[in-house]
C-alpha cells in the first residue's frame, strides 16, 4: 500500500469539503473494498477521509419508505426488524453479502458508490426504485449507476442515505461465485400493483441493468412460465474465468424464475 494522509470527517458536509480540498482524496467507509484495492495498489489516494464518525449510520422508517444511512453495515440491515418487516427481501439480500466479517464492516454507501458489476445492493436499488441521497441531490437508481464501477457521483459528492419504497412483494435470488460470494448472476424482482421491476446484477457488461422485456411479460402475467431470456443479447453479458456469457445469460432466466416463484 502506498502512503496516504488519514483524516476523520465529523459530518457528511465535512467529508465533502475535505474531499473538495484534496487533489486525490477518497472517503473510507467499511474498507472492505477500498483497503484490498489499496493493498494491491490499484487505488492510491493521497488523502483518505474516514466516515466512521460522520453520523451516517442508522435505519428509519418513514411511512412506506425505509431510509438507510450510508454508513449502515450489511449486518445491521440484515438484522433490522424494521427492514425485515417492511422490505424483507432487502434484509435477506444484505444477509447474503460476502461473509460474516465482511457484513460486520461493509456498508450500503460503500457498496453502491463502488458499483461493482457483481455486487448485490445495486440490484436492490434498481429493483425497488430506490432514491440515492447525496450531499448535493437525490438520484434515482437509473440515474446513479452509470456503468462498470461508475456512478453519477461528483468527485466531492458523498452518499448520505438510500431511500427504499415499500413494494407489494419482492425477492432476490443470487447464484454466488463459490469462492468470493459475489453474484455470478443475481436477479431482484419487485411487484407493486401492476408494475413489475426486474433488476439484474453480476451478468451485464455495463453493470446492473433492468430487464425491460421480462418486466413487460411479467406485468402481463406474473408467472415463472413467461420468463424467456432468449431475446437477450449474449454479447452484453460478462465473460470471464468464472463463467461464460452464455452461462450467465442462462442463470438470469433461472434466477428470475426462482424470484418470481418466491414473490
Amino acid at each position: 500500500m502506498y502512503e496516504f494522509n488519514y483524516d476523520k470527517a465529523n459530518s457528511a458536509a465535512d467529508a465533502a469539503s475535505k474531499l473538495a480540498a484534496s487533489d486525490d482524496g477518497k472517503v473510507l467507509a467499511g474498507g472492505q473494498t477500498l483497503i484490498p484495492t489499496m493493498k494491491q495498489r490499484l487505488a492510491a489516494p493521497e488523502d483518505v477521509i474516514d466516515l466512521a464518525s460522520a453520523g451516517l449510520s442508522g435505519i428509519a422508517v418513514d411511512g412506506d419508505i425505509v431510509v438507510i444511512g450510508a454508513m449502515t453495515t450489511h449486518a445491521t440491515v440484515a438484522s433490522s426488524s424494521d427492514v425485515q418487516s417492511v422490505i424483507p427481501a432487502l434484509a435477506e439480500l444484505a444477509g447474503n453479502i460476502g461473509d460474516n466479517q465482511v457484513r460486520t464492516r461493509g456498508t450500503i454507501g460503500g457498496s453502491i458508490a463502488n458499483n461493482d458489476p457483481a455486487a448485490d445492493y445495486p440490484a436492490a436499488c434498481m429493483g425497488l426504485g430506490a432514491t440515492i441521497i447525496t450531499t448535493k441531490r437525490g438520484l434515482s437508481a437509473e440515474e446513479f449507476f452509470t456503468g462498470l464501477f461508475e456512478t453519477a457521483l461528483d468527485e466531492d459528492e458523498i452518499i448520505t442515505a438510500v431511500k427504499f419504497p415499500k413494494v407489494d412483494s419482492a425477492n432476490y435470488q443470487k447464484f454466488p461465485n463459490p469462492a468470493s460470494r459475489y453474484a455470478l448472476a443475481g436477479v431482484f424482482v419487485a411487484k407493486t400493483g401492476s408494475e413489475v421491476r426486474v433488476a439484474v446484477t453480476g451478468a451485464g457488461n455495463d453493470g446492473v441493468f433492468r430487464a425491460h422485456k421480462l418486466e413487460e411479460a411479467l406485468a402481463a402475467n406474473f408467472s415463472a412460465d413467461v420468463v424467456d431470456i432468449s431475446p437477450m443479447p449474449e454479447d452484453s453479458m460478462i465473460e470471464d474465468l468464472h463463467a461464460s456469457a452464455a452461462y450467465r445469460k442462462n442463470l438470469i432466466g433461472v434466477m428470475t424464475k426462482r424470484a418470481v416463484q418466491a414473490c
Partner: protein
Amino acid sequence: MVKISMTVNGKNVEGEVSPRTLLVEFIREHLKLTGTHVGCDTSQCGACVIHVDGDSAKSCTMLAVQADGSNIITIEGLANGEEMHPMQAAFKENHGLQCGFCTPGMVMSAIDLANKNGDLTEELVREGLEGNICRCTGYHNIVKSVLDGANAMKAAE
C-alpha cells in the same frame, strides 16, 4: 505518523503508526502477537480474524488507525492462564486442525458465531464460517469442533 491507543486482550496499548499500517501488522509486528495470521491479500481467507468491539473482523482489512479507541481480542486473549477457552479445547479434542494455520481465525469466528446464535446447527456453522478457508481439514472436524465448543461455552456460562 499517527498516535493510537486501544485495549488489546484487556491491556491498554499505545503506538505510533503510519496511516497505511494494517491492524494485523500492528498486532503482529508492533505488539508481537503473532497468533493472528495472514493467509491472503484478497480479504478472503479469514486467518486474520479478531474481535473488534465484540464483532469478528478481518484485521488485514482494517487500518490500525481505524481501531483507535477500540477493544480488541486476539487468539492470545482467550485462554485463562494454562486453561484453554472451551472453543480452543473443542478444536483440540475433535482434531479440528491439521497444520493449524487457519485455526486462530477459525476459533475467533467460531466464538463470535456461538455468542450471536442461540442454538448452532451444522448448517449455521458452515454458513457462518464462509469467511474462513482451511486448506487441510475438509472442514468436517472443524464443524464438529465448533458445535462442541459452542455447547461447552454455554455449559460454562
